[in-house]
């Protein structure tokens, strides 16, 4: 009898293990392209002691360098950013983060206020697939799903990705159990330059008001921070595109005032920051390159340090040891990117290929 039970348990365990392995195998690895697909997941391996948590879309994970924040101000930070991160995803990522650590400040980039509804499954996946299973993840999925999506495919991604069986490549096997680290505390580095030539003007809109759903989650975020005694700082990162309307800015100014929050539109301060849009962006103004990100971070760091009095931890030997390793990785990646630029004329391993090919046309 015991033998039968043991065999049955073994069979079930084996089936579960095979299923779990297949799931891992079929899931996209985002190692050779679309690196931002790994950002959410990378956080879990981190030593979770950060004074500042950044949340938001590409305007944080491309524009803010936590290494610069550490080097210049001794501020520990992490970016929980992802591609087209919608505000409800930011909220639930923050809620999840607070289960691991309690930062002194949370910085939210407000561009996503313009999206009142879920936009696209592909972008949902880039943010949500990387989240560990938790109440926050389930809530985030429910808030994010498009009409034709199903919750179960986020809980068991094999149900979504099994059709990749005939697309599996060496990358899927190579990174089955362990992936390379690609970000610097959530920052995706790019050192190449593509200047701003044209800044598209915003089209006239019938209604400039942010939607109720967006405001609802901003309210929740504000409440969550206040309950946890965390300073919530709203920013508009200095990316010149997508267009940031005056009317939107005004709503954020008013919201911050009504809720006793700080809101800073860094687009207005780009000159003071020293951003040169002919040199400091890698894609014509959407995202800052390393040079631009370091300038912006240094400027913002002085505000965090002087106005929000975030502590300087550079004398803390334990933290210094942790961050020294990060600094080494940061500069080795910068060096690697420089050598790739020199060798190929573009960042072959860092997602720049498509753009370069287009440029050649």
């Amino acid at each position, binding site marked *: 009898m015991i033998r039968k039970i043991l065999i049955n348990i073994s069979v*079930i365990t084996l089936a579960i293990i095979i299923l779990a392995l297949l799931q891992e195998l079929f899931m996209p690895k985002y190692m050779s392209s*679309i690196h931002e697909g790994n950002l959410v997941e990378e956080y879990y391996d981190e030593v979770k002691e950060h004074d500042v948590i950044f949340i938001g879309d590409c305007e944080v994970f491309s524009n803010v360098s936590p290494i610069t924040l550490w080097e210049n101000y001794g501020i520990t930070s992490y970016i929980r950013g992802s591609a087209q991160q919608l505000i409800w995803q930011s909220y639930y990522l923050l809620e999840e983060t607070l289960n691991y650590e309690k930062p002194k400040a949370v910085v939210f980039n407000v561009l996503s206020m313009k999206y009142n509804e879920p936009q*696209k499954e592909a972008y949902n*996946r880039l943010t949500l697939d990387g989240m560990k299973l938790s109440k926050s993840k389930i809530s985030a999925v429910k808030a994010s799903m498009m009409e034709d999506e199903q919750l179960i*495919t986020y809980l068991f991604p094999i*149900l979504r990705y099994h059709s990749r069986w005939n*697309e599996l490549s060496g990358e899927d096997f190579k990174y089955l159990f362990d992936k390379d680290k690609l970000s610097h505390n959530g920052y995706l580095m790019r050192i190449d330059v593509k200047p701003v*030539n044209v800044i598209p003007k915003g*089209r006239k809109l019938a209604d400039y008001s942010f939607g109720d759903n967006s405001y609802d989650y901003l309210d929740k975020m504000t409440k969550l921070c206040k309950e946890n005694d965390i300073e919530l700082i709203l920013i508009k990162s200095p990316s010149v595109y997508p267009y940031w309307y005056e009317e939107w800015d005004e709503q954020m100014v008013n919201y911050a005032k009504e809720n006793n929050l700080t809101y800073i539109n860094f687009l207005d301060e780009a000159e003071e920051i020293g951003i040169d849009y002919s040199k400091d962006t890698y894609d*014509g103004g959407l995202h800052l390159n390393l040079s631009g990100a370091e300038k912006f971070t240094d400027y913002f760091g002085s505000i965090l340090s002087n106005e929000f009095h975030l502590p300087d931890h550079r004398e803390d030997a334990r933290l210094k040891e942790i961050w020294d390793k990060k600094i080494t990785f940061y500069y080795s990646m910068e060096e690697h990117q420089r050598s790739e630029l020199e060798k190929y004329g573009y960042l072959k391993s860092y997602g720049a290929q498509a753009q370069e090919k287009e440029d050649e046309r």
Partner: protein
Amino acid sequence: MNKMNYQLLKFLMLCMLFLLLTGCGKKEEKDDTAKNNTNVEEAADNNQKNEETDKETEAASDASVSDNEEQEVVGYPFEFGDVTIHMNTNAASVIEALGEPVEYFEAESCAFKGLDKIYYYNGFELSTYPMESEDFISSVNFLDDSVSTTEGIYLGSTLEEMLAAYGNDYTQEMGMYIYTLGETELNFLVEDGVITAITYLAIVEGLE
């Protein structure tokens, strides 16, 4: 392994198969259209495109501009000189036919893998989105009153003129009148009875 264990194993395998097939039956159908895509983003883009395409509008979404001459494209076209521009069709020959743009902007697409592009011409801007290494027309937006819709409406026309040209089959919100045909939206923003913005838009998930 005894008979009972074999049955248990069979049952487990069947459960797995059932989950695989039912959990994404709809996706499976769609995924077949994107077999050669190597990431979820591309796959989802193409899936969406296929899913939302009905029999009539399939012609519109698949047609290249050269095809336009042979196939009837359902949607509002914009005509500029000799060039007829349909939303959601391949942009290459339209761009070629329109000649050198006054200005050009490109940026990594927020919704698709590749580059969003904006071509500025006298009187209007034409935007494209990437799909499977090609660009498709996502919108035409009027910049001044030197261009008009095929039905003769331009920036500065009145609400009455618009209604006379397009009728009453529209949706309206906050002064934006939206006419839908096939995979195309034609949007008129009306302020104080006068049209102040005109935009042709492709109806594609993820486009703003």
